[in-house]
């Protein structure tokens, strides 16, 4: 190829000009905005808390969320501080410190998180066995939650739990089924598992043991996917209870599975319940005496 042909094709000058233009544009473009170091530190602490929460290290998660909240408060970002406070309360509730979680949730005054704080208060009151306070928090949450609020399903589930705790099985079943309908197609596996478990428990309490079994199986399937040992063990306990009511012969298998899972996960309370149930079905005369 001759030089004339080379220049006629215009490869060299045009490519050079294009390269130079790109280089200038890259050098002249505005630098990527970065967060100030303290805010970045707070966000990293929050992210660390979320990671710990996801792998079940609730004490570590509460510590990280607390540190993130204090940092955000020192930066006068009340919204971020309230968000971290809410996360911290959830971590405390998950590690069984319901009173501390309730106190923290009650201190959250930010409007944006008011509904979530109320739901958390209801959850903590349920754990503390305070039905009146639970109903009060749920009523306030129901008022704050409009028809299409994203927390509607969680509200329904808590209402179902509250109704079940007071032996109002039909009402609990209604709320749980409504929650399940709202959760269809949503990426909320834990809540879907909770809905199935509540449906199973409500049907069992209402005398429909045969209808409760598939719901409990569905809850177990979801909890296995999420790898949550405590819920898996409790699902097996529920399945054992249902099979016992139905009169199925494989009741002991379900209790034994609950016992094995609880022992492997170090869940002494559930292991005790499963062992007691096994003893009860193996020696019915001894236990009825």
């Amino acid at each position: 190829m001759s030089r004339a042909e080379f220049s006629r094709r215009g490869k060299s000058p045009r490519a050079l000009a294009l390269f130079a233009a790109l280089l200038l544009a890259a050098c002249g473009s505005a630098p990527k905005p970065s967060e100030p170091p303290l805010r970045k530190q707070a966000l990293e602490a929050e992210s660390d808390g979320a990671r710990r929460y996801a792998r079940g290290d609730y004490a570590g998660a509460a510590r990280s969320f607390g540190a993130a909240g204090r940092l955000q408060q020192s930066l006068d970002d009340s919204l971020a501080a309230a968000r971290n406070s809410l996360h911290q309360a959830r971590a405390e509730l998950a590690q069984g410190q319901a009173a501390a979680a309730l106190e923290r949730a009650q201190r959250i005054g930010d409007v944006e998180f008011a509904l979530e704080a109320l739901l958390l208060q209801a959850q903590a009151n349920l754990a503390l066995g305070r039905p009146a306070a639970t109903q009060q928090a749920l009523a306030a949450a129901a008022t704050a939650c409009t028809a299409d609020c994203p927390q509607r399903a969680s509200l329904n589930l808590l209402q179902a739990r509250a109704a079940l705790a007071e032996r109002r099985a039909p009402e609990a079943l209604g709320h749980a089924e409504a929650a399940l309908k709202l959760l269809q197609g949503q990426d909320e596996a834990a809540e879907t598992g909770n809905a199935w478990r509540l449906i199973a428990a409500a049907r069992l309490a209402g005398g429909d043991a045969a209808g409760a079994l598939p719901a409990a199986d569905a809850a177990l399937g979801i909890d296995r996917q999420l790898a949550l040992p405590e819920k898996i063990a409790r699902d097996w306990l529920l399945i054992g209870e249902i099979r016992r009511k139905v009169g199925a012969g494989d009741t002991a298998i379900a209790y034994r599975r609950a016992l094995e899972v609880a022992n492997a996960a170090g869940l002494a309370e559930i292991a005790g319940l499963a062992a007691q149930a096994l003893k009860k079905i193996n020696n019915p005369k001894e236990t009825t005496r």
Partner: protein
Amino acid sequence: MSMLIAQDREAEALQRGTRRFLLFGLLAVLAVIAAILVRQGLFRQTATLGFVADSAQDISKGQAVRIAGFRVGSVAAVTLRADGKVEVNLEIDADHMRFVTRDAVVELRKEALIGAATLEIVPGADRSKLAADQARLSFSRGESLTAMAGQLREQIAPILQDVKTITGTLADAQQGLPATLRQVRETTGALHTLLDTGNRQVAGVGTAATRVLGKAEEDLVQVGRTLETANSRLPALLDRTQGIVDHVEKISADAETSVPPVLRDGGAVASDVREIVAGAKSAWPIRNLVEAPAPVRLKADSDPHAESVHVAR
């Protein structure tokens, strides 16, 4: 015909371009060679210093030599002498010889914890007497991480032994805390019984004052006996407690001298590691790769412990 003339002109132009390109390339190669020679210090005046070390560990030819952290030269040669010692020769920029005193010491240091080893010339106190070319300097090695770990272990081991001894003494069923608590509990029980008896006596004071007074006298005698018992047991108890307190004081005194340096070393190590990580994160281009995470949203879970099952049962 005209086509042939046009082709000749194009070929001639191409040849001219090729010649220019080759000439430019030649000039560029010469410039690079010149730059390398300058960089290698061909035109630079240097001075030679030397020292003798016991071992050539972490010392190698070409290794950087620094003064106050600035690279001023390199190791020119490392040779093993007939007496088993190691002879090291350093090549230093002549300009920087004004910082090297006769009593300067060459120290082998590590860059941070895991960095490469470098030789640092530490000038002496007398800045008026400068070292000459071919001068011999003294040499020392900085403390390694292994040496620090060994020192830490040596300081912690006696403390752990003392703590073990105290724990054993406290847990001893015959002489330790359980026995002391048992004696205290017995004494408290006796006093409690006495108080109960006294209360019952006071309740019936209106109807049987004389009998109560007699009983109270008996109770007082019992109190006397109880107090005597307590009195006889207390000195031994106090002696043991004093012994334990003395032991704890001794350990605290030992710890006061041995723990702070250990903590200081540990703190320095942690601080170094933190600085390395923070420095790496804030250095270009890593800082552009490490972005601040977005605010998180935890997945909803209204029943984390599946308590509804417990209610249903």
